[in-house]
């Protein structure tokens, strides 16, 4: 296939580089510098897609990111990328694309039947039917609708590319590198300020690349290239092509997406596909240009019908004409430029049709006063029907029709912080309003200044104003400075199936029906008809709809108003927002000091928040996790076990008021705790509900080490800082987290003392170091360490801590010392079994709704002092006699399960919510008792020991007869702890 619509000269393509590409299975050629759309047009391909609802054949409407029609599935396999605009997809060698939203081939789409049925499928028709019989919605109607709807398809394979994020700071961000943006950038850059110039296109210059205007002695494109070259040479300027600024967020933060690798076949090794930049800027110059709008008339959506400015882009930038016979339909002078440019390149101009009576004439082609009222051509335009000013009609033979309905300044970013645009009568368009995001100013076409000279001037002036420069004259090149001459004209009288929103198939008729049915606010119109909800978010469609609404309501367009402009400016890959935070990199991993050693032991690890903890340590011959866990528990209770407990939060609390401070944050008393002693503490939230529990060890008169649960380390620390800084700012207390500074191991079991005696450099006897003692010590002949005699397992136990770097060595030392006692490493499962056996509350019990009373610790809440939560813990709802109390649960049949999450019901009576008595919070198999056990909360539970109940889990189909028992299954008197 030859590039039959490619001009032999001109354009900013690299004719020396030919790229081969495939579209819908056919092979074509294009050049470097092409987009997929320009290359397809060059090859004579006008049909590129199908519309959303009626599956109408469609070609390109635009030459930019606002394209609603020419959406394709780009690439294949796991890189398949649905809804890619052919108008922005940069051509590369080997590009592979398919058309989408079709059943059958693009030429013979079976769903085009919808177009025949369009009279039944008007705006909102689906709200009025498909209701009978009720069950048919999910079974029949909806699946059919869903399969017909949607656009491209997702491969459903994992995206193989990586995405980066980054952060940039600048004095001035300039959005858009057309004449205004370049002019601004040159001024700011030369003045030495830090500037970022971002443009969504791969070639900077904006409309300068698409027009034939001269700037001084250069062509626009050459001037732009020279300007970019100068900017790139300045160290204070960062020029970012292929970078779309997607949104203006609070306080001068802009999001921008740089497409690093979308123009190559696959990203280079280690390189991202895209980067999401967060740009922090003092000032912003928005120079994002303007978007031409089409005109609505009957069948105005056929392939070959496109914006007149897009035709100029294809002709001047890409050296392509959409067809050899072209007509133009315009309401303003700009449309005539397209005819002139194409004519100069040898394209036959069928006619220029202008709605204005007093129109510029041409010697080169026919100019008609009139309106295009209909078109023909099933898969591409063949004829345009014109009604002339005198009422007569005429048929124009043409394969392409350029529409020029005037220009809409791209005001989106000015409205991202809920600013509203204002109406400009001269342009018949909305321009930026007064409520711009702080620090932003607008220049050039985005500001409604549509001439090239005006854009250059305004860009320069914006730069001068944001930098507060002396307004010395600058040497701006001579450029066209034509005023805008437009007659507002939105749609051709009498048309019905005239498309406003080409992608969503919203026609003039739909807008009228919406009005007729009372959907008369602009938001109702949008939502009822789906106007402007397509992938272009109404860039080419909204104005027409608003104009018709205004007319129907007898209002002006500004009275009707616009819908809200929302980020992103153009649709943005979700992968880019995710960055590298996916897969294993979703959240950071925290490894304990014994991680390497545990890995060597073959430990199975489990995620606990961001920590990876050893869950159990399987041994040869063990086939189920239960075997390992049972062994670990039994060995620990029989002799000795060791477990890494570094993950518990640790906060150093120092200062002369440290004890008073702990009295505030714990509901129980700490002032009288002796130096060298540790105490259990329960921390309440101010609402009287348990927040966390742990221990505080008094290492010196003015020094405590507070532990928190693993999960709550961060919120508890934040809370402590709140109490310190905001509530008691004059307390002499200093806080710092030391969670990761110390490797801490629990050594538990009757032989734990014997093991540690071999390591610790001090007297370990019960008298010298009794239950709840703590001390700064040394180990192994001199390494500084901390020793606490505390126990989560209920056994004689210690926790020993050394600086983290020595954690690995200490674990190996403990294992060596414990070898003669067959010391057994245990993981979080065995830890959990032992704490349930002992009746200690943990995360499942401290679930944010339990009070001290629920936990059976009501009496711990001291009434003699001020502590956080003590007052609100006295509320009646937290002090009901029949409230939940923590209990133990054991099965009557030792073989029966007692699942956590099951609910407690009386032995007889119905099983339903009204008869719910409580629930099991934590459960496990107790190898010591030989049956399953659970902790739970039961109404009035402290009075119900010995009662038989049913523990039911209809969800998992379990029902067990259980007995309510003490939560302390093992050693209720605590003799082992004190041994």
């Amino acid at each position: 296939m030859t590039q039959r619509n490619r001009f032999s000269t001109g354009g900013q393509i690299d004719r020396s580089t030919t790229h081969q590409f495939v579209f819908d299975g056919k092979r074509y050629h294009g050049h470097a510098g092409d987009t997929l759309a320009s290359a397809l047009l060059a090859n004579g391909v006008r049909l590129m897609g199908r519309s959303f609802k009626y599956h109408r054949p469609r070609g390109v409407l635009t030459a930019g990111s606002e394209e609603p029609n020419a959406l394709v599935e780009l690439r294949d396999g796991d890189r398949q990328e649905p809804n890619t605009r052919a108008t922005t997809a940069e051509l590369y060698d080997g590009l592979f694309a398919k058309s989408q939203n079709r059943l059958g081939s693009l030429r013979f789409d079976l769903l085009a039947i919808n177009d025949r049925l369009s009279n039944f499928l008007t705006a909102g028709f689906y709200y009025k039917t498909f209701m009978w019989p009720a069950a048919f919605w999910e079974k029949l109607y909806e699946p059919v609708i869903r399969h017909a709807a949607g656009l491209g398809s997702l491969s459903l394979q994992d995206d193989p590319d990586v995405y980066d994020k980054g952060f940039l700071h600048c004095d001035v961000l300039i959005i858009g590198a057309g004449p205004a943006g370049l002019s601004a950038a040159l001024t700011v850059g030369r003045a030495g300020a830090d500037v970022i110039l971002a443009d969504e296109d791969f070639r900077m210059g904006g409309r300068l690349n698409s027009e034939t205007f001269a700037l001084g002695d250069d062509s626009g494109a050459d001037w732009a290239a020279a300007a970019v070259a100068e900017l790139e040479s300045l160290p204070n300027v960062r020029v970012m092509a292929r970078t779309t600024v997607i949104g203006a967020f609070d306080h001068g933060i802009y999001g921008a997406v740089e497409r690093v690798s979308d123009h190559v076949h696959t990203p280079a090794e280690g390189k991202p596909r895209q980067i999401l930049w967060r740009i922090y800027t003092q000032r912003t110059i928005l120079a994002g240009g303007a978007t031409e709008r089409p005109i609505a008339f009957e069948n105005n959506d056929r392939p070959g019908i496109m914006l007149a400015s897009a035709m100029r882009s294809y002709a001047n930038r890409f050296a392509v004409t959409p067809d050899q016979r072209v007509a133009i339909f315009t309401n303003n002078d700009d449309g005539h430029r397209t005819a002139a440019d194409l004519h100069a390149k040898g394209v036959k101009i069928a006619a220029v049709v202008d709605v204005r009576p007093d129109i510029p004439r041409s010697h080169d082609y026919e100019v008609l006063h009139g309106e295009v009222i209909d078109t023909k051509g099933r898969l591409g335009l063949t004829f345009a029907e014109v009604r002339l000013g005198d009422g007569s009609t005429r048929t124009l033979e043409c394969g392409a029709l350029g529409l020029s309905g005037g220009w809409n300044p791209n005001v989106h970013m000015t409205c991202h912080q809920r600013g509203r645009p204002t109406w400009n009568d001269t342009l018949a368009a909305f321009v930026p309003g007064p409520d711009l995001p702080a620090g932003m100013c607008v220049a050039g076409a985005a500001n409604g200044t549509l001439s090239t000279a005006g854009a250059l001037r305004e860009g320069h002036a914006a730069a001068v104003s944001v930098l507060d420069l002396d307004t010395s004259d600058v040497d701006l090149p001579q450029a066209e400075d034509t005023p805008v001459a437009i007659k507002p004209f939105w749609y051709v009288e009498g048309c019905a199936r005239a498309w406003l929103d080409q992608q969503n198939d919203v026609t003039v008729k739909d807008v009228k029906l919406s009005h007729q049915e009372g959907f008369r606010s602009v938001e109702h119109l949008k939502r009822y008809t789906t106007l402007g909800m397509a992938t272009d978010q109404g860039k080419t469609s909204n104005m027409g709809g608003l104009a018709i609404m205004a007319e129907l309501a007898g209002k002006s367009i500004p009275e009707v108003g616009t819908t809200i402009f929302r980020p992103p400016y153009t649709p943005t890959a979700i992968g880019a927002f995710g960055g590298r935070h996916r897969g294993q990199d979703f959240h950071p991993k925290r490894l304990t000091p014994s991680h390497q050693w545990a890995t060597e032991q073959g430990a199975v690890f489990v995620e606990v928040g961001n920590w990876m903890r050893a869950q159990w340590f399987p041994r040869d011959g063990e086939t189920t996790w239960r075997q390992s866990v049972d062994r670990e528990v039994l060995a620990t209770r029989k002799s000795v076990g060791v477990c890494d407990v570094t993950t518990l939060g640790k906060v150093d609390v120092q200062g002369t008021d440290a004890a008073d401070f702990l009295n505030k944050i714990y509901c129980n008393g700490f002032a009288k705790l002796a130096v060298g002693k540790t105490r259990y503490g329960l921390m309440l939230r101010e609402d009287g509900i348990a927040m966390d529990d742990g221990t505080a060890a008094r290492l010196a008169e003015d020094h405590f080490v507070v532990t928190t649960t693993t999960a709550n380390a961060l919120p508890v620390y934040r809370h402590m800082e709140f109490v310190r800084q905001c509530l008691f700012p004059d307390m002499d207390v200093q806080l710092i987290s030391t969670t990761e500074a110390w490797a801490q191991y629990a050594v538990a079991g009757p032989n734990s003392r014997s093991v540690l005696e071999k390591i610790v450099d001090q007297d370990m006897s019960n008298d010298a170091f009794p239950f709840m003692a703590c001390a700064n010590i040394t180990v192994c002949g001199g390494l500084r360490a901390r020793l606490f005699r505390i126990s989560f397992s209920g056994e004689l136990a210690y926790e020993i801590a050394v600086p983290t770097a020595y954690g690995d060595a200490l674990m190996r030392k403990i294992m060596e010392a414990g070898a003669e006692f067959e010391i057994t490493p245990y993981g979080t499962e065995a830890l959990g079994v032992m704490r349930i056996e002992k009746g200690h509350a943990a995360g499942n019990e401290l679930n944010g709704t339990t009070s001290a009373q629920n936990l059976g610790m009501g009496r711990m809440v001291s009434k003699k002092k001020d502590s956080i939560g003590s007052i609100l813990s006295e509320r009646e709802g937290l002090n009901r006699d029949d409230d939940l109390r923590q209990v133990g649960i054991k099965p009557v049949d030792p073989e029966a399960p007692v699942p956590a999450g099951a609910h407690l019901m009386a032995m007889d009576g119905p099983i339903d919510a009204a008869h719910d008595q409580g629930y099991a919070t934590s459960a496990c198999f107790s190898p010591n008792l030989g049956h399953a056990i659970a902790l739970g909360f039961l109404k009035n539970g402290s009075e119900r020991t010995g009662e038989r109940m049913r523990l039911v889990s209809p969800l998992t189909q379990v029902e067990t007869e259980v007995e309510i028992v003490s939560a302390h299954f093992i050693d209720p008197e605590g003799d082992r702890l004190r041994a």
Partner: protein
Amino acid sequence: MHDLKPLTALGGSEPRIERFAHVTIAENDGLALASVAARMGFEAECHGTLKALLGAVPGPGQAILHDPEAGFWMGPDQWMIGAPKDTHELLADNLKVRFADTASITEQSGAWVCFDLIGPGMADVCERLCGVPIRKMVAGDAQRTVIHQLGCFVIRRADADHLRILGPRASAGTLHHALVTAARSTA
């Protein structure tokens, strides 16, 4: 003397070094660290001792790159002091003696992993990691910020080519991975 052998934060017996054309990422295992927080009412005395120790009191966002002890500001009335581990293993104990009742001292040697980014690509790498205004920072600037969800200190040690990043030790692997992938991406 004890015979326990320390591991580096990345779990090796020797620090890791990754070399790229534009930057070298070196694990620095040689730092002893301790925090110093002024006791209420003793701020002046604490400042005096800090000044004697470092030559100056680091203000907010500042580090004093002093030898052998260096220090940076962590928060109001709180500083981190660092010194070579070889000679200052007992840094916290020594500071306790030096500051006596004027400050609370906490050993922090085990809490952090330290990476030195050295080379002209340092700023490019930093831009992919965190929001500090790296190109505006000068030697002696120290900022706490977030890298891959981890609270880190970013300290500019030299204007031209040296950045130090302190991160939470338990996540040394995650932080290292983030640094290395950013380096590859900017190479």
